[in-house]
């Protein structure tokens, strides 16, 4: 078995399984802590508030966007760019089709991939530079934040290097980093990709009961 076959085969499935089980374990662990039933007479729906809260916080408020525009641009650029690259790059769709789902979907054209990847890189770099250049972010950031940023950066960088699909070793390095990223994900702050739903939802539900949602 070649190194590429190892990281694309058994290691990928092992890390993918740990990713899935770990992420579920963590989410269930949070939910199992439970909460007391709120018995104050509601003015509105907590369930509607849960969903509204989730949607509302996708959109920055003008008042604060002025102050945090760099973060908003960097954050949106990185996340949207990464999403587009992860799920709509042609090699990824082929991989998903062959290794996981058994079906594919339309891919981004090459120029679309390049634009999305550049936006994602720019966004990630802006966010990471802010982590050590902004006094607030420097103070509150920890090792996990930096490891998560670096791993994601390496996944993206090696992915771009492997894009030509000309050298197996470049593809193997990319897949090896992806395997590490998948292993790290459920134990780290990268889990915010899932926990944000609970967090926004909890606040949204609380406000929803009060008949409003900021």
């Amino acid at each position: 078995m070649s190194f590429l076959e190892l990281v694309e085969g058994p290691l990928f499935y092992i890390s993918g399984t740990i990713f899935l089980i770990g992420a579920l374990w963590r989410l269930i662990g949070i939910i199992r802590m439970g909460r007391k039933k709120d018995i104050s007479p509601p003015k509105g729906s907590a369930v509607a508030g849960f969903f509204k809260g989730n949607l509302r916080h996708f959109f920055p408020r003008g008042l604060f966007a002025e102050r945090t525009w760099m973060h908003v641009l960097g954050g949106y650029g990185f996340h949207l760019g990464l999403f587009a690259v992860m799920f709509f790059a042609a090699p990824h769709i082929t991989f998903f089709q062959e290794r996981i789902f058994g079906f594919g979907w339309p891919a981004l054209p090459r120029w679309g991939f390049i634009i999305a990847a550049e936006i994602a890189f720019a966004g990630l770099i802006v966010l990471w530079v802010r982590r050590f250049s902004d006094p607030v972010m420097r103070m509150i950031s920890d090792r996990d934040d930096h490891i998560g940023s670096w791993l994601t950066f390496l996944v993206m960088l090696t992915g771009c290097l492997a894009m030509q699909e000309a050298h197996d070793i470049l593809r193997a390095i990319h897949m090896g980093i992806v395997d590490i990223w998948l292993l790290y994900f459920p134990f780290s702050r990268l889990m915010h990709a899932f926990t944000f739903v609970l967090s926004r939802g909890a606040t949204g539900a609380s406000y929803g009961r009060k008949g409003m949602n900021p």
Partner: protein
Amino acid sequence: MTETANTAIQTLLAQTDTDVASYLEACVHCGECAEACHFFLSTKDPKYTPTYKLAPLVKAYKRHKAPFHTLKGMLGLVPDEVTEEELREWEPLIYDSCTMCGRCTVVCPMGIDIAGTIRKVREGYAAAGIVPEGLQAARAQVEKTGSPMGVTAKALMAQIKHQEKETGIKIEVDKKGADYMALLSSMEVMGYPEIIGAYARLFDRAGLTWTISLDAYEATNVGVQIGSGPLAKGLVQKIVDAAEKLEVKNVISPECGHAYGALRWAGPNMIGRQFPFEVVHIIELMDQLRKDGRIPAGEKDGRKMTLHDPCQIVRRGGLLDEPRRLLDDSCSDFVEMEGAGVANLCCGGGGGVSANPRAEELMLNAFKCKLDQIDEIGGVEAVVVPCANCRTVFEDGLDEFESDLEVIGLGELVADTLKEA
């Protein structure tokens, strides 16, 4: 570990439910919350970043309760135990520099309720007895007299008699079977007693039966400010007992921020059952009476006015449109400030900060942000502040910064602009 630290940690962990865990798990350390916090904005000191204030809870959670804490513990990847020294070091961040205003939640991309979580952190601190002197003194006054300012029933009666004389309207005390039982805050009784007369004028005009209980007239809940669940529960229970004794249908929460949340939203959860009466905020009630045509608006006040949104009534209480409708009816030149409504800045003295002399300088600096927000409008002659605590912070702040802006309560404004009968 000391007994104090152990008590704090155990209480913090007991407070950590799914909601709090979701918040701690979702924070990505983006620091945007700092941009919403008036204590950071006025000092530019990163230590006032709201999420940073939660550090003791975060450490305890990661070490003892977070998913995978056992596995990470075996690998030496959990934080050290929180020490009493650390807890004491963090105390000013927990009590002096957070008004629990919740503005940080509005900006947070994860929607984290940092204010509500600080409230839970304070439970740990209160249980361990790590509480600022000013709040301890307020607690002692409450335990002795029922009021954080030591306002006795006798002192209240003197103010009621005075307002009866001013308005010529009889104010019923301990009247059984009244539709409404009004609560007041100590600050109102001693600093702004004219609100009692305003209630009398408004309710007399609306034809409501109402009363004030001499057993439970105080709305201020120091337990909520300190973070003491047992104290907060006791104060709510006192109101519930009085309302049940008088068999009233509604209890009116006054122009006081946290009192509304403490009674309306947290109250039933504290005592473990629903109330046999409704809790209505005075602003809600006035708005409803106005809609029903029972307190018609007369000649409007012509001064250029703006509205300060008390955080616990508006952003965290849900009463966003009601005060605006009342102001539109009462004032011919009502202007909003930037971020009006849910994004409005706190006065700087909520959440017990104004009762904590150690925090005075921080509070006044934070208030300056509020004042700047008003000054940006230009030409404002009066600011309507429907919260007695905010009102005292405004008056102290305006005095400090030598501003001649007038501060008025909403109830008084509505009463003063009633249509003549």
